[in-house]
């Protein structure tokens, strides 16, 4: 081994890593479809795609968490197998997970040493570990105190601990799973400095992100995945941001659909200068103003993670609004409780329907009345009207063609499409004034998707004001009367159906103003 293929950390460089023909099948799902992917020393390779496009699956295979159904991995031209994360680490592959794997009550040095053999047998060798951490920190410009406790550190600093942990274990190649999602803009800048240093030193980095400007800023190459398959790989130098946006979303719009002419009614929901924060108390939605009219579908397009979920939750009372107002016709529902919002006939199909939309261990019948379990006809004087609930759910199961042995079946045992039908049935059957549907067809097969679309159009015909949040541009363009585009918590503009092109929307999704 010569000095040239050593990294400053002392570990061996990975000159190239190649994944060839990777296929991963889950029961009924093709999560990864014959994907080729490679990273070289000294480059940042971005992996881009919608949720469920297969990015995580591919990376979990590389890190030894999943076994591929087919395909091979080559390290510096030699075929290797990776069965466990330990194998991956031994080959010099490290992964920084989106959710940190740190023990809060331990120090930095203790976290780094965790799970590794000590040079002193049963006794810890934390002094040695600390010295090595400081050495690594010096080489890579990672300022960190090995004696500090994790809970004392900011999220940005915790991320550095994760990087040090990987470097300490000899990582030459790092998988960064949405590393910037949890960082403030300042922390992102600092993080990019670290990334550049590592690349200059000969590390290879795989960067997963939804944010196009970050990819343009930091990456050398980008690979786009869609539905588990690779769309292509390009050099960042050869592509502009708008081209990248178009490429990501610019498939042939396959589902051109003539929307029935409906006279637009009065404004049902008006959102005025609404702002709210995300879980980390960083601004997620900034001064958003929208009007949704009776009998229209307003599509809210955007790459996921740009404030859509927070916007929907703040309208429906699940998230605190920090500024602005929400009016349902002329009633102010700003920061009203979810129960109040429900009572005013605003329906919501949440994005994470398994977590937010239903109770897995409750029967279908019980889930059908989740929002109205306390009001007539399903309850009177504090008692549930079980017969009424039963007949109501039988009716909905039939009408919405939910495939289930009976109404008493636990909802969690249904398939994804049938679960969405239950949620849809519950929310739509109330004849709501306003319907907010977040990613209503994500993860559904073609048949179920078509069914959901028909139901949304049926609601539109009935005069419901609908906001449909989706990152699927085909869907947005096929169903919406108007399309608003959100990027980093701000509305980039609203486009009329007739004026919408994938190119135009793609640009706006990338952060360019629509005007």
């Amino acid at each position, binding site marked *: 081994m010569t000095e040239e293929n050593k990294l400053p950390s002392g570990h061996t460089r990975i000159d190239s890593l190649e994944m060839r023909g990777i296929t991963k099948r*889950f*029961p*009924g*799902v093709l999560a990864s479809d014959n994907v080729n992917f490679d990273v070289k020393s000294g480059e940042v390779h971005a992996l881009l795609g919608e949720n469920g496009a297969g990015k995580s699956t591919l990376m979990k295979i590389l890190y030894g968490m999943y076994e591929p159904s087919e395909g091979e991995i080559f390290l510096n031209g030699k075929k290797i197998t990776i069965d466990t994360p330990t194998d991956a680490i031994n080959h010099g592959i490290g992964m920084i997970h989106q959710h940190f794997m740190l023990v809060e009550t331990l120090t930095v040095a203790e976290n780094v040493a965790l799970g590794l053999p000590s040079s002193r047998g049963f006794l810890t060798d934390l002094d040695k570990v600390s010295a090595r951490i400081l050495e690594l920190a010096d080489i890579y410009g990672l300022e960190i105190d090995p004696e500090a406790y994790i809970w004392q550190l900011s999220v940005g600093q915790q991320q550095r601990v994760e990087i040090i942990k990987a470097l300490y274990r000899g990582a030459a190649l790092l998988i960064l799973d949405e590393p910037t999602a949890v960082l403030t803009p300042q922390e992102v800048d600092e993080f990019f400095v670290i990334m550049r240093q590592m690349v200059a030193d000969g590390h290879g980095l795989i960067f997963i992100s939804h944010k196009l400007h970050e990819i343009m800023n930091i990456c050398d190459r980008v690979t786009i995945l869609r539905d588990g398959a690779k769309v292509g790989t390009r050099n960042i130098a050869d592509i502009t941001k708008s081209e990248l946006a178009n490429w990501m979303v610019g498939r042939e719009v396959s589902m051109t659909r003539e929307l029935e002419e409906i006279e637009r009614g009065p404004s049902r929901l008006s959102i005025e200068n609404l702002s709210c924060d995300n879980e980390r108390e960083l601004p997620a939605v900034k001064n958003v103003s929208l009007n949704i009219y009776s009998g229209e579908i307003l599509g809210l397009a955007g790459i996921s993670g740009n404030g859509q979920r927070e916007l929907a939750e703040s309208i*429906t009372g*699940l998230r605190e609004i920090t500024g602005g107002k929400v009016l349902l016709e002329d009633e102010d529902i700003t920061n009203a*409780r*979810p*129960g*109040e919002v*429900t*009572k005013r006939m605003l329906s*919501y199909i*949440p994005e994470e329907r*398994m*977590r*937010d*939309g*239903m*109770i*897995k*261990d*409750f029967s279908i019948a*019980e889930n059908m009345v*989740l*929002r109205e*379990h*306390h009001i007539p006809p399903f*309850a009177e004087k*504090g*008692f*549930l009207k*079980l017969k009424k609930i039963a007949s109501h759910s039988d009716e909905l199961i039939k009408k919405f063609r939910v495939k289930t042995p009976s109404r008493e079946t636990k909802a*969690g*045992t*249904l*398939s*994804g499409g049938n*679960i969405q039908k239950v949620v849809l049935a519950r929310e739509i059957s109330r004849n709501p004034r306003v319907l907010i549907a977040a990613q209503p067809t994500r*993860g559904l097969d073609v048949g179920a998707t078509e069914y959901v679309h028909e139901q949304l159009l049926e609601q539109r015909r009935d005069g419901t004001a609908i906001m449909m949040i989706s990152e699927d541009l085909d869907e947005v363009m096929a169903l919406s009367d108007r399309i608003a585009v959100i990027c980093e918590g701000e509305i980039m503009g609203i486009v009329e159906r007739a004026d919408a092109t994938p190119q135009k929307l793609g640009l706006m999704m990338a952060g360019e103003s629509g005007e």
Partner: protein
Amino acid sequence: MRLKFDSVIDALLPVFATFAALGVGAIMLMALQVSPVEAYSALWEGAFGSKNAIAETLVKATPLLLVGLGICIAFRANVINIGAEGQMIIGGLMATQVGLVFTDLPGWVVIIMAIFAGFLGGAIWGGIPGALKAYFGVNEILSTVMMNAIAVQIMNFMLRGPMMDPAQLEKASKIPQTARLAEAFRLPRLVPTRLHLGFVFAIALAVLVYVLLWRTTLGYRIRAVGQNPHASRYGGIRVRRRIVTALLLSGAFAGIAGAIQVYGVNYRMITDGSSTGFTGGAGFNGIVAALFGQLHPIGTIPASIFFGALLVGANKMQRVVQIPAALITALNGLVVIFVVSSELWRRRRQKQRLLVDEGGEPPPSESPKTEKGASASEEVMA
């Protein structure tokens, strides 16, 4: 057809598990050079061998059942109440005070008031940790255990001071106990044994708790909060309030257990300085009974009787075959471990059956990332 057979097996699993536990217990008995047959027949004899034995078993089962009902409510809301001992004590103290103050009222009025006082005392003692959990994020396991310690000291203070039997005050012995309740205030006995009306009352409450949990909006909410707080919030349920309600009701049932213990068995409160001196450990054993009854109020009825029998029968067994009392505790523990393990087994069987029914395909939504909905019983045993 197969389904029916499977569900029969499922229902019998705890019974099999119990036999398995007794089997391991038999090995322990043999190690002590005691005949297991002799020991177990003594146990059976002690628990069900005579009218008196059966009555004793049911008397022992009564506080287990009442506490267990409260545990069903709390655990269904995914709140772990380890504070039934303290809640029983406070309920018992308040109920006793009613009987000592309102000596002029008719018996049935005082009994009703006393049960209500027990309810109130337990509710306060459960509601405090409930509010601490809901609004300040205080772990309810810790706070309910701590509240037990506080309750014991309050009991010791009250029985040595303000509530002490005036007769004891005059005597030199100064036994820390209250005066005896008037004869009219005692819960009527059902047959000429120690079995009192409290047992029937507890059975009626079990039915009531069943109705509460599955037939009322409050019960729906409590169960929803326990299963999925996110979806509950979305469904308009005020999660924090329901957590408080669940612990408050849970404590209230333990409080009633305390009141019944005073009015049906002891007719006064007396302390040996510990909580078990008053409760007989029902505050903890009630948890076991509820888990054994699969956190179902109706299932908790036979479960309580079973543990009542084990406790009563063990006394006899100890006398007959001369074994250390510690072995009884060990036997109790064995039963719990086996039954709780069989519950996990049953769940796995259920899941497998589902997979078979769906043609071997797990629901596609069940991604590896999906958070596991650990049930209360799994969590408390972990």
